[in-house]
């Protein structure tokens, strides 16, 4: 049996490892557009900043692929899928080849979603921060650069901001919406994050959709956003990611915003599975959603690997979580923002907020002190009654102890 995995990110590798763990005898081929072995994109900002070495980005030792009997076809992009012949087309050094599969995993991740603005995508001096190659390109160009504009204030945008500030650049971040981290936080917490950015001398422009990027004799010259034109020598575009479905066009695989899968990571096509950032899958509550993050990539990859190896393992649902550091201050959030709020303030500007509907947690956000936040996520997933939570109960240390319930209390010596 031949298993082909498109994508050498966490989803693809987790799947490959799950297949090997199952003991199924088969060949496993991992196809990757990029030329590096499996690395993590998450510390890329730290890599640009200089606090994380290039070596430690790589997630497995040098012997990993050989030991795990995985054929890695690096620098090889999938370009088409033909389910009827069970083959994919791949482009290798400009030549198109075909690979047959008995089972195929689509784990090709997501790509930066550029806003439809002229002079942005692919223009000189305009970078993204998605892959190791992107990070290397920024590093090559950052020397001698004084001013940069980061487009988008999502978590990748803000990580890029910090990396560049720590590299000594003066940075402006432009955001089309009325707040920073619009996917993660409500306006209240976003304002505090913004204030923190500003204390580190980051200029934050809200309600400022990018309209134009202008080029000068030495490359990029300015960004026009909202009613401002900001002169700069470097632009980092971090306007979010979107599943890259282009190579699947015409294959008949069902897609919406991502590849649609069930709780075993099966697509509508026989023997074709998908996992990671590319999927649209049931979330923790069973709703189809797009939730690109590392834990989901690993978890869905493992389920996909197990399914392909013939094991029956069910996905517990995509988790709507995210975490980011703003100049050392942890910020995390999960679920949705809305409904009844429970708020608590902690030491040194720390704050937590939970969102409840009908006595159940539907979301939460944490600033400065994220300890214990996983318990609230678990309470949400388990639909634990949380109506007992008030500001006092929410503050302070949190652990699973808060969820323990016990026998009724006797309250007197007489019993």
């Amino acid at each position: 049996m031949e298993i082909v995995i498109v994508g050498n990110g966490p989803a693809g590798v987790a799947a490959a490892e799950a297949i090997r763990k199952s003991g199924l005898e088969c060949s496993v081929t991992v196809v990757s557009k990029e030329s590096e072995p499996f690395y993590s994109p998450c510390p890329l900002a730290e890599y640009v900043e200089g606090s994380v070495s290039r070596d430690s980005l790589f997630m497995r030792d040098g012997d990993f692929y050989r030991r795990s009997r995985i054929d890695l076809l690096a620098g090889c992009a999938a370009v088409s899928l033909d389910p009827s012949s069970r083959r994919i087309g791949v482009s290798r050094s400009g030549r198109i080849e075909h690979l047959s599969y008995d089972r195929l995993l689509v784990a090709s991740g997501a790509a930066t979603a550029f806003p439809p603005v002229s002079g942005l995508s692919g223009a000189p001096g305009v970078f993204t921060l998605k892959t190791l190659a992107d990070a290397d390109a920024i590093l090559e160009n950052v020397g001698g650069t004084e001013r940069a504009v980061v487009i988008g204030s999502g978590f990748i945008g803000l990580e890029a901001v910090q990396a560049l500030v720590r590299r000594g650049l003066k940075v402006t971040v432009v955001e089309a919406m009325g707040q920073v981290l619009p996917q993660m936080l409500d306006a209240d917490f976003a304002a505090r994050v913004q204030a923190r950015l500003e204390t580190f001398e980051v200029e934050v422009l809200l309600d400022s959709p990018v309209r134009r990027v202008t080029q000068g004799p030495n490359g990029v010259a300015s960004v026009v956003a909202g009613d401002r034109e900001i002169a700069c020598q470097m632009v980092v575009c971090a306007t979010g990611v979107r599943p890259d479905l282009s190579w699947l066009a015409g294959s008949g695989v069902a897609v919406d915003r991502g590849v649609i899968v069930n709780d075993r990571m099966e697509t509508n096509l026989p023997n074709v599975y998908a996992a990671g950032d590319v999927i649209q899958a049931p979330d923790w509550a069973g709703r189809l959603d797009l939730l690109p993050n590392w834990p989901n990539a690993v978890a869905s990859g493992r389920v996909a690997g197990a399914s392909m190896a013939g094991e029956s393992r069910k996905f517990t649902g995509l988790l709507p979580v995210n975490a980011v550091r703003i100049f050392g201050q942890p910020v995390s959030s999960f679920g949705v923002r809305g409904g009844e709020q429970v708020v608590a303030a902690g030491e040194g500007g720390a704050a937590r907020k939970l969102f409840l509907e009908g006595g159940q947690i539907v979301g939460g956000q944490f600033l400065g002190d994220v300890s214990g936040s996983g318990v609230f996520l678990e309470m949400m997933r388990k639909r634990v009654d949380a109506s007992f939570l008030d500001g006092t109960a929410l503050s302070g240390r949190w652990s699973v102890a808060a969820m323990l319930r016990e026998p009724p209390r006797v309250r007197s010596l007489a019993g």
Partner: protein
Amino acid sequence: MTSVQIPAVESALLSIAKKKGIKTGRDRLKEMSPQCGFGELGTCCRTCYMGPCRIDPFGDGPKTGICGISPDAMVARNMLRETTGGAASHVGHARHVLLTLRDALDGKAPYEIKGAQKVLSLAKTFDVPTEGRDLADVCRDLVDIALEDFGRQDEMPNNWLSARAPGQEQELWKELGLMYSNPHNEIETAMHASSMGNDADPTSLMMRVLKMSLIDGWTGLALAVDLQDVLFGVPEVSVTETAAGVLEAKSVNIATHGHNPVLSEKILYWADKMDEEAQAAGAERINVVGVCCTGNELSMRHGVKLAAHNSQSELILATGAVDAMVVDIQCIWPQLAQVAKCFDTAFITTDPMVRIPDAIHIPFEPQRADEDAKEIVREAIAAFGRRKGKPVDIPDHKSKAVVGLSVEAILDILSKVNQEDPLKPVIDSVASGDIFGFTGVVGCSSIRFRDGAMTEEMVKNLLAANVLVVTTGCTAHILGQAGFLTGEATDKYCGEGLKGVLTALGEAAGLGGPLPPVWHMGACVDNSRIVDLLAAVADRLGVKVTQLPAVGSAPELVQEKAISIGGSFLALGVSCHIAPAPRILGSPVVTQLLTQDLSQVTGATVQVEMEPKGAADWMIGHIASKRAALGLSSTPAV
């Protein structure tokens, strides 16, 4: 977290503190949670340096300390040290008052004898001749009698105990070996006996606890109160206000906090005289308010307004409106200095024994009382000068309160109904069941219970069952703030019987309305007044105190002093409810002794109830059984 009913003023103060980012005891309690089970069970021993030793309450681990001490003795020994801490506090307080009185008589301290009536009644108690003698000379004899107690090395019983305590009970205490001579010797012996390698018999140790409690009761409470009445006068009924709303934004607010009126009396005196200085600084006047028990002392004798009980002491500072908080001794949270620092508040310690980092220390000596008090008032005026014009957050809450119900004041009211036999109307009402019984609801205010309004809820239940409540200490503040110290409360909360009695008494006394259903008898040290009242009623009826339909309660125990006071009630035969549980549950023997077997010894037991309703029910039931034993109807009103 659903059934909380934080008293309104408390929640207003808490939200002020929260708004200003000031952490409160509640925050610290939360951080402290969970608290150690060994400590709560009483089975942690740090008496020697082979330890600390802890007994496994599940019985699998260590069953004794390293030295071999049993958990029972460990618990009893710890309890003895708590009781000794409480007794030492009250004896120290009493001795300070005694020495001030001596110095005043010698012309060395600027205090007058305002309680002539008390001097005469004490002279009668102590067989001191008064005929044709100067008041000061009589007084000097009393001082000598008291001083003798602190110097004797014989086994003669203590003067104050033997002359002041009721006779029948003394007989019992003699039998039990509880009579003491020099209180200081006993405090020494208790510390000695409870140190490593001495008394290891739980029963013997618990008898020491009772003895130490008697010391608290008679050489602590009674001596202090008697002599305070001599120096500052016997309290008379007056009407005042309670709760944080008594602070005045435009006045120099001086909050006196602690227990010993020797200082606060002088502060009040000079504050009255120094209004002009305050006006020169732009204030309307000087507003002296009372916190904790020194507040109760001033309120009892001068109708001073009561701003806060102990656990609110940090909260009223958060208003920003307290210009000076002047403290003497006991129950002073070191945290106060930290909260004061956030404002212009001068936090002033005065006793050499009470030194707190970040406080202003103005040593107060009774000999220099006037100068010291003036200096303190000036410090407050200066603080007002710094604060003037800044916004403050004073909650609106305040309630009226009738205060000053000393035994003398009560008898005075009752004598308006029956001149010859003042206690008769009360005794008749007890017999008829209109007054079902008495409770002394006393003690501290605890953040562990405040959010459930433990004291208030319990008292509501008692009043509905026609149980008359007397109160002292921070409990009195709580009940004052909740409006229980008013005639209106009689209509609102009392059962029909009690309501009728209080209304009749109030009208006979010419108050134009009912007496309050809860009688404010003073500071925590004034628990001796409750004892005197009980003794008087028992005497009039010709029964022992333990036979009375009476019970005590410390529903929000905090201080060691409450343990020793409670012990003195137990020794007298008055059963007590307390919450939280004392640290005895690690010892089956001590638990059994205090909750059951003690009734065979003194007639009293201890009951722990954490819920107000349960506590009230137990007390009512206990009163019912005492009534039944006296042949009185024992069905409470419902």
